């Protein structure tokens, strides 16, 4: 029993006297997002190195770290991937990697600093500690203002001890890395196929050239089907090709790897869609609907909708006239527009004539299958063509209004004025032909009579006509047509 105590005491003394190796830390230059996305702050990095060293860690020399960054072409700090972390562990003989980001740094108006740090164990690329600390001079303001920090240097004295206060003094043991397939890249094309089309899957593993001969046996699994991957002639990718299944739907591709040791791994690497039918399209035109036909005079809203939505590769809209000439052609390789507006102009920029047109909308899905929908539309932008005939003589005149053609009227009105500006007659209505009579009893014989006629059709096409002198044109009782003006300003 005494011997046992003696051995235990010797072992305890040895454990106490043999120095424990301090963990080696590689402090990477700090990413400074206050400067730019890829900014670097060497001043704060030096401060941090000193603070970390004070805590008993062994530091990797800064020039060795810089050489590592250059060798691996690391352009952006603060976000190394697992392979680079492990490489840093190997090449820099570092147990831990300390990477950080300067989130805020300002001298004025009030000094402020904030820093986020991550301590990563290089053995398994696990983040074992992280902390973010922020400090502003306003945080340290005392009631009397005595000894308040005036610059960043004053803040550093408080800031760094706070930042690193709970940084672990030793390396926690690695918990064992979870198995993962070390895939560098996957190219699975195409994403949308028709039944029977060939699907190609190319996989590249990390450091593949160095592992030729020791590569795992890889199989792409799609449902119950299995397709082994083989090295391509260039030796850059492991490739498998297979025909897409006949049944439409989305197919998930899984990669199964069997290593020479018998270890197996699986990972989802992508998916593709088998599509065997063109997308169903509906076309809706927004205009004035009369007897089941769409009319418009200013703008036509074209709304295409997919009854069973799916990604669209491109679309095209055509407007075709009665002579089968395409007056508008527009399209794009992008998603379906929610709505389009046709303002009656041709692709050349001129206004299309009144007439009947066919709007055709055509789409192509990702597999190249196309479908189209069309609707008829009538374009009317010419104002109502109204004629005014004057009948009668002496003190009684009758004005007869009629329209030659065009859309049904929404309204019309006509005013007749005496030479002194007094309103002699206001006639109005919604239909033509129409007539109304004028009693000129109180007027001097031969005095000019002015008139204004306004009319609009149901699409909104509007016309204003000015009559300079009704009497002079009606002097002859034959009811000849009056001279009209196109513009009028009703100002008296």
């Amino acid at each position, binding site marked *: 029993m005494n011997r046992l105590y003696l051995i235990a005491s010797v072992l305890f003394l040895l454990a106490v006297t043999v120095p424990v190796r301090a963990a080696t830390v590689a402090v990477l230059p700090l990413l400074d*997002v206050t400067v730019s996305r890829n900014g670097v702050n060497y001043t704060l990095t030096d401060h941090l190195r000193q603070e970390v060293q004070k805590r008993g860690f062994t530091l990797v020399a800064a020039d060795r770290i810089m050489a590592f960054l250059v060798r691996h072409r690391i352009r952006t700090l603060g976000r190394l*991937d697992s392979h680079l972390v492990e490489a840093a562990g190997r090449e820099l003989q570092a147990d831990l990697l300390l990477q950080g980001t300067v989130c805020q740094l300002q001298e004025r108006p009030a000094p402020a600093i904030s820093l986020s740090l991550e301590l990563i164990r290089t053995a398994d690329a696990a*983040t074992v500690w992280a902390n*973010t600390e922020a400090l502003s001079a306003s945080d340290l303001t005392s009631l009397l203002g005595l000894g308040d920090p005036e610059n960043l240097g004053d803040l550093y004295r408080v800031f760094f001890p706070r930042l690193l206060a709970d940084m672990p003094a030793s390396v926690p043991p690695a918990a064992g890395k979870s198995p993962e397939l070390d895939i560098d890249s996957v190219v699975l094309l195409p994403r949308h196929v028709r039944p029977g089309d060939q699907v190609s899957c190319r996989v590249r593993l990390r450091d593949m050239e160095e592992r030729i001969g020791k590569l795992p046996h890889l199989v792409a699994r799609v449902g119950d089907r299995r397709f082994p991957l083989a090295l391509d002639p260039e030796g850059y990718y492991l490739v498998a090709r297979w025909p897409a299944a006949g049944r439409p739907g989305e197919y998930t591709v899984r990669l199964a790897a069997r290593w020479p040791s018998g270890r197996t791994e699986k*990972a*989802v690497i992508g998916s593709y869609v088998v599509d065997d039918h063109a997308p169903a399209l509906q076309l809706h035109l927004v205009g004035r609907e009369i007897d089941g036909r769409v009319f418009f005079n200013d703008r036509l809203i074209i709304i295409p909708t997919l009854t069973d939505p799916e990604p669209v590769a491109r679309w095209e809209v055509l407007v075709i006239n009665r002579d089968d000439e395409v007056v508008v052609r527009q399209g794009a390789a992008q998603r379906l527009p929610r709505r389009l507006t046709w303002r009656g102009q041709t692709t050349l920029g001129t206004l299309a004539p009144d007439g009947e047109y066919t709007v055709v909308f055509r789409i192509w899905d990702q597999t190249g299958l196309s479908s189209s929908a069309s609707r008829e539309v009538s374009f009317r932008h010419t104002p109502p063509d109204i004629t005014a005939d004057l009948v009668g003589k002496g003190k009684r005149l009758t004005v007869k209004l009629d329209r030659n053609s065009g859309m049904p009227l929404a309204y019309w009105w006509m005013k007749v004025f005496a030479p002194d500006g007094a309103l002699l007659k206001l006639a109005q209505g919604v239909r033509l032909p129409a007539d109304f009579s004028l009693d000129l009893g109180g007027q001097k014989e031969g005095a000019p009579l002015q008139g204004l006629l306004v009319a609009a059709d149901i699409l909104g096409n509007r016309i204003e006509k000015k009559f300079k002198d009704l009497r002079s044109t009606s002097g002859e009782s034959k009811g000849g047509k009056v001279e009209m003006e196109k513009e009028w300003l009703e100002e008296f």
Partner: protein
Amino acid sequence: MDRLCRVWAVLFFLLLAGCGRHVPTLYRFADLPARGTCRIALLPLVDKGDYPRGAAILSKVLLSELVSSGHFQVVQEGDILDLYRQLLIYPDRQPNQEQLRIIGGRLGIGLFIGGDILEMRQVKGAIAPQTGLTMILRIYDGATGRLLWTTYHRRQGSSYQEVLHFGRINTITGLARRMAHEVVELWLGEGMEPCTR
């Protein structure tokens, strides 16, 4: 007298409500997976605010809060960005469900945490800087890519002010840290399963 007492009671209640703690708001769309929430990937956040590099700052803060909570293994940001590159996803875009499923399968991820910054600001105030942050954080299933939880949180640095200037948060990073801490605490309180030690 009775009426006066009632008025005072209402005023006192309003006063208490005004001083009440504003916790983040959690919306559940589905339950978290019973197991496997330990390994977490933090997706690059979508920045809809105008604070320079706001997403990068909040992302770092959130990562440090998740790690320092001691409950989660957080996947390296570089590994996520590697897969973004492979899947041709822009870092400022949110991956779709299929892409999340692929990333989750490749890295063995239990949960994804992503989100949006709606507003992030730090402006000069009369006495101290004025800070404000509005964010939405989302939790997705690592196996299916499905959205599980959404958390909305909006605070200002002055929200934490107690007496005089004490308690007030004067840096946007400090505010982000405090809010991220509150969100992580809420998640853990609502049943997010930590790693078994």
